[in-house]
């Protein structure tokens, strides 16, 4: 029986392909698995193997010719078989225009307030990887492709009927076949989906809602000249085997300031409040699943080197989800740093039952006034969110004043 050879989808973004070279002439024998034609996609030149054994009866798209995905490019069959039906059936390849029309219509259908989406739409929304819809692959190959984040549709299959099997995946992984990596999450444009909340996400949702509802927040911002801290860090790093970060210095500076201002290092307890004379400092760490705040304990007693070592270990274990509960509960104060994202200012929500949280912005280079002259300086904004039930504005301001003083005179940390 004659088989139609179609333009394959060789990449996610490919819409049409160019025939580079036919390796068989019309009338020549073709064996399953032999390379039949070289095709150029938008991403790479790729070889297409014959899925069947027979004679190459008709080349529909000659060398140099273009064809959209799914269009007939050749027919393989028995030497004397009648292929006229196949040829006439597909003489008009799907037109680009009609495709575009469909595309143009699709989004408006989605947006229309129809209670039940049309069946076609619904199907598209539930298909996890629409580009793989017509790719034949063994269950093992599918699993391997998923594990290695490969696009199955871009991998030529060497099994029966072009089925992608393990050896094809291995070929793709060894770099012989330029398989394209899939985006992290496949989704259908123009649709919405419901993603269940992870347990960590649920906890964050509950606690942040509670905090913002129960604690009247107010915010005080101060700008800090970071040039002394930068110089201090260079000195520390010249002496340290591991790299000391600004976060390490900020944790230490905050701990020192908290020792002077226990009102900020406080938990509200209804008819009383608990002031801590130690600084267990939580530092917000972003994970894929959500935020965790591992705690460096007794920072007031520890040197920056110790803080650095403990914090790195905590972050590492937080990423591997290996933190013990006592390592992320019981902080007296939290620091949240978005400076690495270039954020200059933000306000954070207090992490209950703590009384305050310090939001750290980026160190930015900008004109500052020093000794009556405008010079290029390095500054950092920090914003303290406080629970007004127990912390007043002047208390917050005095804490920040001391915090600023420490960072601008970091040698004081050595006292």
């Amino acid at each position, binding site marked *: 029986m004659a088989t139609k050879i179609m333009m394959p989808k060789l990449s996610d973004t490919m819409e049409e392909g160019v025939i580079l070279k036919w390796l068989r002439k019309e009338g020549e024998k073709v*064996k399953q698995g032999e390379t039949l034609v070289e095709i150029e996609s938008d991403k790479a030149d790729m070889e297409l193997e014959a899925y069947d054994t027979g004679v190459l009866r008709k080349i529909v798209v000659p060398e140099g010719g273009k064809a959209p995905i799914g269009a007939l490019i050749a027919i393989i069959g028995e030497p004397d078989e009648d292929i006229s039906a196949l040829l006439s059936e597909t003489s008009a390849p799907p037109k680009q225009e009609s495709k575009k029309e469909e595309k143009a219509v699709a989004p408006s259908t989605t947006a229309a307030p129809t209670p039940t989406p049309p069946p076609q739409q619904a199907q598209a929304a539930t298909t996890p990887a629409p580009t793989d819809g017509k790719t034949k692959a*063994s269950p093992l*190959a599918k*699993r391997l492709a998923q594990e290695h984040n490969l696009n199955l549709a871009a991998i030529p299959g060497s099994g029966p009927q072009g089925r992608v099997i393990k050896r094809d995946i291995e070929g793709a992984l060894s770099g012989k076949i330029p398989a394209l990596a899939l985006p992290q999450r496949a989704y259908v444009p123009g649709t919405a989906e419901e993603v269940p909340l992870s347990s960590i996400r649920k906890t964050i949702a509950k606690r942040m809602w509670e905090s913002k509802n129960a604690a009247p927040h107010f915010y005080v911002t101060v700008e800090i000249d970071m040039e002394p801290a930068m110089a201090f860090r260079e000195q520390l790093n010249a002496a340290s085997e591991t790299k000391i970060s600004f976060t390490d210095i900020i944790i230490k500076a905050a701990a020192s300031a908290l020792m002077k201002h226990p009102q900020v290092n406080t938990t509200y307890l209804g008819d009383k409040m608990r002031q801590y004379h130690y600084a267990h400092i939580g530092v917000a760490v972003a994970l894929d699943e959500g935020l965790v705040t591992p705690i460096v304990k007794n920072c007031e007693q520890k040197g920056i080197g110790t803080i650095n070592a403990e914090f790195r270990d905590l972050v590492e274990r937080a990423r591997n989800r290996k933190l013990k509960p006592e390592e992320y509960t019981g902080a007296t104060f939290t620091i949240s740093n978005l400076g690495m994202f270039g954020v200059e200012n933000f306000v954070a929500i207090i992490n209950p039952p703590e009384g305050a949280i310090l939001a750290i912005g980026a160190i930015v280079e900008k004109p500052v006034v020093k000794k009556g002259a405008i010079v290029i300086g390095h500054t950092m904004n920090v914003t303290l969110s406080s629970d007004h039930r127990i912390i007043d504005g002047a208390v917050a301001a005095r804490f920040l004043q001391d915090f600023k003083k420490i960072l601008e005179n970091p040698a004081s940390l050595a006292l």
Partner: protein
Amino acid sequence: MPIVSLREALNQAMDEEMARDERVFLMGEEVAEYNGAYKVSQGLLAKWGPKRVLDTPIAEAGFAGLGIGAAMAGLRPIVEFMTWNFSLVAYDQLVNNAAKMYSMSGGHFHVPIVFRGPGGAAHGLAATHSQALEAIYAHIPGLKVVMPSTCQDAKGLLKTAIRDENPIIFIESEVMYGDKGEIPEGEYTIPLGVGEIKKEGKDVTLVSWSKILAHVVWKAVETLEAELGISIEVIDPRTIRPMDYDLIVESVKKTNRLLIVEEGWPFAGVGAQISYEITSRAFDYLDAPVERVTQEDVPLPYARNLEKYSLPNIDKIRQGVKKVLYID
């Protein structure tokens, strides 16, 4: 280790168990005075006397039922069918009494009985005397089906079967009785439901048992490994029910391909069930559909050429191996 024939291995198993437990006795057609149609019971009458080794009339339904009753009453009978083809006359006893008595009596009656004898085709015995019936017995809940492919397994499994509290279908092979093999010195048993990797390999897992494994598959494996440059892992489940699926799953996780070679017919065969279980349990490890080699789906022809063509043979195994490995 001593080398014995399969019939000697089975004989030793029965002899040792009769010595171990006086409730064990053997009955069947020609098992006593004639020393067994295939000489499996050689010398047992002389050693244990006519109370424990009994010749029966040619009445399978009768003596199978007698054995089941004896088991319910506390004895541990071994009932020999001259061949498993004749067990069909007693099928009602095996299926309705032996298999169901325990559950239908609410656990009051165990039926610790072993039905044993040769199964499958020998040579030129025609359709009614050449049947591989493991699938129709394994189909029945309440029966265990045991099919050894070596002398060592045969002795160890038969001893375990005799000690089991449930009815056991123990299927041997006429053409294997003379096969010789090593067995361990002294007392040993092999648990039911535990298969064995008889040969390690990496490209395809081949599951087979009993005579087809012993007489057909081993030669095919040797030939095909050389011919195709492949490495075949051979698993003998040894017990058809309970089947050691875990062992097959682990192997398929490694090879990603499975071929089952069995003597029985294709429809609802043992391989069909294995295929389902593996597709279900190891789906994400399969690189090709599970393949089977079976007997042709016809009553086995008497004509030698057609008989040979109908049964699993090296050509069919070659086709199966190539198909499952996608070799043209």
